């Protein structure tokens, strides 16, 4: 490339780079600084307190609950969201009629906003007016309190997973459609069953797609906020608290932005750690066919 071309590249990349720096990198560096300060009420005073916020973070029981919940969410996302998407794609692919119908139905929840889904489920789980208790009443069963401190994270997991299963479903479906027909034909001549076809041919050939979907699912699970906050606000007695909801609560309800910045740094480090581990786990040679 000669110098003239490079000039245009720089020119067209610069707006994005400037925006990225101004709204992502610079605030991140500032957050690292704020995490070492006592900063209340978004005031002008920020007193440097060294590692006190981090000490509080380590001793905070709510952070422990949040980490446990994040783990549950990540495992749920990998197994049920990506895994569920894969299972649905395999099933839909083998269906002869109604292929387009299933594809639309499974993809549909993605276009609904997370806030709307949250509101809908908070009404479904409501004790007096909710749908679940109405069904219980219709069958003559006693009404239940659905959101308890033991069940809240699992009940909140359901709408989160349901919303994005369709996304992975569509990705896998596309991946499956790229596999050449002749592999299946030659396997059929050898007398292969449906399940063997799925496990011995389709899944191994989809390894790249599975790897990228796992990364996406994990990243998605780490940044969930809206559905959890709307349904439980962190749940009965902090039981469905995530790092993101706890950070929001500390920053805006508690007006303690210093400690909230510490939580942000913790979130970031956790995300990097999980992503690095995941990349190591799925790193294999690429497949070509």
């Amino acid at each position, binding site marked *: 490339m000669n110098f003239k071309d490079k000039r245009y590249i720089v020119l067209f990349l610069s707006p994005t780079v400037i925006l990225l720096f101004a709204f992502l990198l610079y605030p991140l560096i500032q957050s690292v600084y704020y995490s070492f300060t006592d900063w*209340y*009420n*978004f*005031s*002008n005073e920020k007193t440097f307190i060294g590692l006190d916020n981090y000490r509080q973070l380590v001793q905070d029981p709510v952070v422990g609950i949040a980490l446990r919940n994040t783990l549950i969410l990540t495992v749920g996302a990998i197994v049920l969201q990506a895994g569920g998407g894969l299972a649905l794609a395999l099933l839909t692919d083998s269906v002869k009629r109604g292929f387009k119908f299933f594809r639309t139905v499974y993809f549909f929840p993605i276009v609904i906003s997370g806030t709307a889904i949250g509101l809908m489920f*908070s009404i479904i*789980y*409501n*004790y*007096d*007016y909710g749908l679940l208790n109405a069904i219980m009443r219709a069958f003559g069963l006693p*009404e239940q*309190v*659905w*959101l308890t*401190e033991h069940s*809240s994270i699992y009940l909140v997991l359901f709408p989160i997973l349901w919303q994005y299963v369709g996304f992975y479903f569509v990705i896998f479906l596309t991946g499956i459609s790229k596999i050449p027909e002749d592999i299946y034909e030659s396997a059929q001549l050898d007398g292969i069953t449906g399940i063997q076809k799925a496990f011995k041919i389709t899944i191994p050939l989809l390894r790249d797609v599975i790897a990228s979907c796992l990364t996406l699912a994990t990243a998605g699970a780490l940044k969930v906020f809206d559905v959890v906050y709307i*349904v*439980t*606000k962190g*749940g*009965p*007695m*902090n039981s469905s608290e995530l790092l993101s909801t706890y950070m929001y*609560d*500390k920053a*805006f*309800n*508690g*007006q*303690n932005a210093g400690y909230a910045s510490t939580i942000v740094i913790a979130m970031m480090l956790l995300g990097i750690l999980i992503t690095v581990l995941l990349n190591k786990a799925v790193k294999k040679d690429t497949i070509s066919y």
Partner: protein
Amino acid sequence: MQIRKTSRKMTVSLLLVALAGGLLAGCGSNNKDNAASSTQGASSSNSGKQVKLRAATSFAGSDPWVSAWTDAVQSFQAANPNITIVDESTPVNQEALRTKVKADAATGNLADVLFYFNGSETKILQETNEIVSWEDELAKDPEWASTFNAAILDKVKYEDKQYSLPYIGFYEGLFWNKELFDKHQLEAPSTFDAFMKAVDTFAANDIIPIATSLTTPYIQEALVLSQVGPEGQKLAYDPSWAPALNLIKDLSDRNAFPRDALTLDDDKAQALFSGGKAAMMFNGSWTAVGLSSNPAIQIAPFPLVPSGKGENMIVSGFGSGWYMKKNDDQAQYAAALSFVKYMTSPEVAGKFAAVGGTYAVKTTDMGTTAPLLKAGNEMVAQAKDFVMPIDSFVSRESYTDFLKGLGYLAYGKKTAEEVLAQAKKLSDRNQG
């Protein structure tokens, strides 16, 4: 090569022309507005200079006074064509208004006129040294000053200075459904015994005794005030509050609250009460407007708890007031002052009063005030004393932690002493 160069030059020049045209179009209309208003301004009694006032209030979103506010702003602009109001009002929920004003204060970018919280929030505004103290203006205009209730003016002073002009007050009271009480032959909940009898009777009859979310502070405030009175309430998180907090656990054990109170939000709790599924609700005057159409709903002060000191005490206050920014520009200052005087005039205040609340200024009765609203105002007038809620003089972090702790307490996961100690620790840390 030649053709490619010229076509690229043409595309670039077309884009530039479109961009320039867009910018000029915008400028053009501004110029026209300025020209028109300056000619109009010259003929009005004001100085004729185009003044832009930024106003940041809480009248936004689902606030009940939004329409009264926007009408008042429009009629002010119609009467004063040289003044434009830039409405920066932000809703109070999710702490949006607090965050906005605090960020504005920190960056030296406060609006000209604010309708914002009193109490601990005044400190933050006062520290900017940019807000006016109203004593001088009140002294200059005694007629305007006389429309304010002197006792209330006194209550909202900060460090003995009048930084905020009180306006709309709120009160919190025990709303109860007379129809449900009569149906179960219960007397009005004016004593603690009658209150507890009602709780037990309703719980046994599948009616929710008290509609409340355990994430909102209202009934907790009522119990604490009833137990320790105004003096005790000022001692943040004092161990003397423990009996009141233990009452919360007691009520929760007796199924006084909705079963999912820990994840219920305030709107749903209000819906339970207005829908007749709950018999009582301790909430604020802002909910009275929605309930006023049902003649069965009554309001009363919270009963005195056993060995309590807060008899006939109301949680009430003038939690917000009008602030004004200092300004060297005379025209700007005069415009802001005339706007505040307009908003606090009896006619405009009367329009706000028709929506609800209790007022620190004289209001012209619009003749449409519902009986429940009148009853609420009576309750405040007959109260022995009124105090601001706890959150107006403690740090927000300790307060949110305290409320969360009460949720744990209601389900027996923490003791009252633990909750108070933790909140006190946070409060001390926030002060120091």
